[in-house]
């Protein structure tokens, strides 16, 4: 009831209409940049070369599709966004864009991006992009987010799809290699978001989102972060076994994996006060760097020809 009243008050404050910048903010540009980057890696790592123009078109469609998901997420979550420090400045809670406008904007972009990708590139990629948007909006945002502490475990699949879409854009199919890229992001998501939730848990608690630290407590969250990290690091090495990554990737994945485990262990060990918060913040920041560097090395190896195969493994 409270959230409905708050949303109604948001509706009435929209007087002058949003600026172009407000609509860009609806697309969650920072999330979009990571999506585009991982999709680019899927596209470049694929065995079949793609015409550069069609590659750029694919990335634009994937970016717009991700932006549409962000807009629809902000439309649905406007009530809780208004009460969380991290999200209170978003265009809908600030009264810059009406919720109905955000909904229309998101739907038009979602249909447009899927249709364009299907028509201009191929329908396997188009269907996968549609699945990604639907999964993020319906499964994560509407179903899981407010109901279960497993929300980001299962919902993380939406963020893991972009390299599969990129791969499908280049090849017209889904392969084991693209599923390994999916798996890396899928297993990376829980420790990444739980590290954030550890020092933002009061926000989530206030709005009733059952993040793991809120439901199971910080200690259990720290244990889960360590478990998922222990699973993630070996999965990060799978591209080497499949021949997708070479020597540079193997060294990078192993080195970064050890640092990731060290951060997870520190988060698990240091639990009290400001030091505990700092450990979680550092883990959150490093997790972004970890994923970025893993995919950047794959990109360098394939795109710039820096790949030195590992004898006996590939």
């Amino acid at each position, binding site marked *: 009831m409270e959230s409905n009243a708050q949303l109604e008050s948001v509706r009435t404050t929209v*007087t*002058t*209409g949003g600026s*172009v910048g407000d*609509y860009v903010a609806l697309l969650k540009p920072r999330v979009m940049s990571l999506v585009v980057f991982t999709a680019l890696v899927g596209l470049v790592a694929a065995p079949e070369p793609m015409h550069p*123009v*069609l590659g750029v*078109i694919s990335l634009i469609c994937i970016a717009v599709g991700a932006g549409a998901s962000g807009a629809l997420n902000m439309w649905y979550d406007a009530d809780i966004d208004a009460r969380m420090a991290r999200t209170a400045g978003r265009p809908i809670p600030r009264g810059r864009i009406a919720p109905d406008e955000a909904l229309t904007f998101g739907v038009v972009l979602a249909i447009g991006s899927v249709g*364009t990708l299907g028509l201009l590139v191929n329908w396997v990629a188009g269907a996968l992009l549609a699945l990604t948007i639907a999964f993020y909006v319906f499964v994560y945002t509407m179903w899981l987010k407010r109901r279960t502490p497993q929300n980001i475990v299962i919902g993380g699949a939406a963020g893991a799809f972009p390299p599969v879409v990129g791969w499908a854009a280049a090849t017209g199919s889904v392969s084991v290699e693209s599923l390994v890229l999916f798996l890396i992001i899928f297993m990376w998501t829980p420790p990444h978001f739980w590290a954030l939730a550890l020092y933002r848990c009061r926000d989530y608690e206030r709005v009733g989102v059952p993040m793991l630290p809120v439901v199971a407590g910080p200690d259990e969250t720290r244990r889960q972060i360590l478990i998922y990290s222990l699973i993630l690091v070996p999965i990060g090495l799978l591209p080497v076994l499949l021949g997708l990554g070479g020597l540079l990737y193997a060294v990078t994945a192993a080195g970064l994996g050890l640092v990731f485990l060290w951060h997870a262990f520190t988060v698990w060990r240091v639990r009290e006060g400001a030091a505990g918060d700092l450990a979680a913040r550092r883990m959150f920041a490093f997790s972004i760097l970890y994923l970025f560097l893993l995919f950047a090395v794959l990109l360098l190896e394939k795109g710039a020809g820096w790949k030195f195969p590992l004898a006996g493994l590939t």
Partner: protein
Amino acid sequence: MTPDEAQELERARRQRMRSIAIALALVALVVLFYVATIVRLGGNVARRPAVGAVSQPTVVVSSPAPSEKEVQQC
């Protein structure tokens, strides 16, 4: 200028910027579809007969012409 007038001016400015952004997005979409079509068609675009050109009757060769030797045998 009263606050109401200032707000109306600001509303009109944002509306104009949104209209420009939509126009640019539509132009970009047209260019995108045009370029993708050219890329998809590839060299077939160049092989397409010019508009107004008299089309030649298609010659269908169903089997190789008989050699001189074969003709003599007949």
